[in-house]
C-alpha cells in the first residue's frame, strides 16, 4: 500500500532529527538525510523509521571513515548500569539551575551519545532496539546513556566539561 505524503514528511523529519543527533548541526544533517533518502529511493524503500535510521547511521560512519575523523572509543561493559533503561533514568538529574548550559553541552556530546539520547528520549526506543540499530551490545548502549546523563548532570551543576 502506498504511503501518504504526510506520513513520509513525518518520516523525513524524524530522519532529520536523528541525523542532527549524529552530526550535531543542521546543515550537515540535511545533507546526510538527503544522501540516505536517495539511497532508499534507489533501493525502492522500505519506508520505515528503522531502515531510514540505519541507512543514516551507516552513511554517517562511512563519511567519517572517509574523512578519517572517526574517533574510536573502547566499548564498555555495562556491569553497573542494570539491564534496561530504568524508569527513573530521566528524573535523576536536577536541571533547575542549568540555565541553558545543558543545551550547550548537548552540542558538545559525542555523536553516538547524542544518538542514543535521541533514540531513547524522543523515539522511546529500548536499549535492545537501540543496540540492534546501532550494532552495539545492549550493555554498551546503557553505559553510553549513563555517561551522557552524567555529562548533562555535571553541566547542570555548572561544570560544563564533557570529557
Amino acid at each position, binding site marked *: 500500500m502506498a504511503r501518504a505524503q504526510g506520513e513520509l514528511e513525518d518520516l523525513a523529519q524524524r530522519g532529520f*532529527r536523528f541525523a542532527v543527533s549524529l552530526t550535531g548541526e*543542521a546543515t550537515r544533517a*540535511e545533507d546526510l538525510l538527503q544522501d540516505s*533518502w536517495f539511497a532508499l529511493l534507489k533501493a525502492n524503500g522500505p519506508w520505515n523509521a528503522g531502515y531510514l535510521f540505519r541507512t543514516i547511521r551507516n552513511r554517517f560512519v562511512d563519511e567519517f571513515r572517509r574523512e578519517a575523523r572517526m574517533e574510536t572509543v573502547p566499548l564498555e561493559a555495562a556491569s553497573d548500569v542494570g539491564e534496561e533503561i530504568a524508569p527513573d533514568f530521566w*528524573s535523576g538529574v536536577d*536541571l533547575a539551575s542549568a540555565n541553558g548550559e545543558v*543545551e550547550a553541552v548537548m552540542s558538545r556530546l559525542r555523536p553516538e551519545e547524542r544518538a542514543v539520547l535521541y533514540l531513547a*528520549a524522543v523515539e522511546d526506543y529500548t536499549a535492545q532496539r537501540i543496540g540492534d540499530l546501532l550494532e552495539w551490545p545492549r550493555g554498551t548502549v546503557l553505559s553510553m546513556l549513563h555517561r551522557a546523563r552524567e555529562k*548533562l548532570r555535571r553541566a547542570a551543576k555548572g561544570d560544563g566539561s564533557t570529557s
Partner: protein
Amino acid sequence: MSERDLKHTVSRFFTEHSLPAPRASRLSALAAATDESSRRAASPRWAAFAGMLAACVIVTAFVTARLVSPDQGAQGTVADASRQGTQEIESATGENGECRTPRLVAVSTRADWCPMCPRMTPVYKKLMEDYGERSVLFVVFDMTDDAAKKQTEYLASTLGIEWLCKQKMPTGSINLVDREKGVVLASVTQPDQMDELIGSLDKALK
C-alpha cells in the same frame, strides 16, 4: 514530570530542529512517487501469479472430472459438480482443451509521463465498450519505467506477441495486432485516426 527534567530537555533540543518544509515536501513527494510506482509494478506480478493459480485450478478440475467420470455420467454429487464444471470449462476452451485467446489484440501503450496518453484513454475505453464482447483481447502495455516495461515484456510473451515490444511503439498509441500472422494491422496515435483502426478491426473480424 517537571518542565525541566532531562527527557524534556533532551527532547526539546532535538525537536526544535526541523527540516525546512519545502525540502521535506520535496523528499516525501519523491518517495511517494517511488512507493506508488513500485506498488503498481508489483500488481502485474500478483495478477500473473493469480492467473497461473487460476489456470492450475481449472486444469486440476478438468483432470479430476475426467478421472471421476470418464465418459458417461457418474453417480454422486461430486462427480455431477465436476462434470458441470467441465462443461463450463469446455465452453471456454477449444476442442483440444487449449485456451481460445483471441487472434486479435488491441494494445494500448501508456506511461505516467506521457502527455498524449490522457487524450487516448477515453478513445480506448470507447473501443473496449463497443468491441468488448467480440473476439478481441484488450491489453494495456505500461512503459512508465523499467519495472513496468519488464512486466509488459512478460505479458507480451505470455500472449505470444513479444516481437511487438521490440518494435518502436510510441506511448499513447493504440495498436491492432493479429497474433497468428504476427503483424500490426493498424496503429493510431491521434483520436481522430480511430476510424482507420475500427475499419481494420471490422475487416479482421469478418
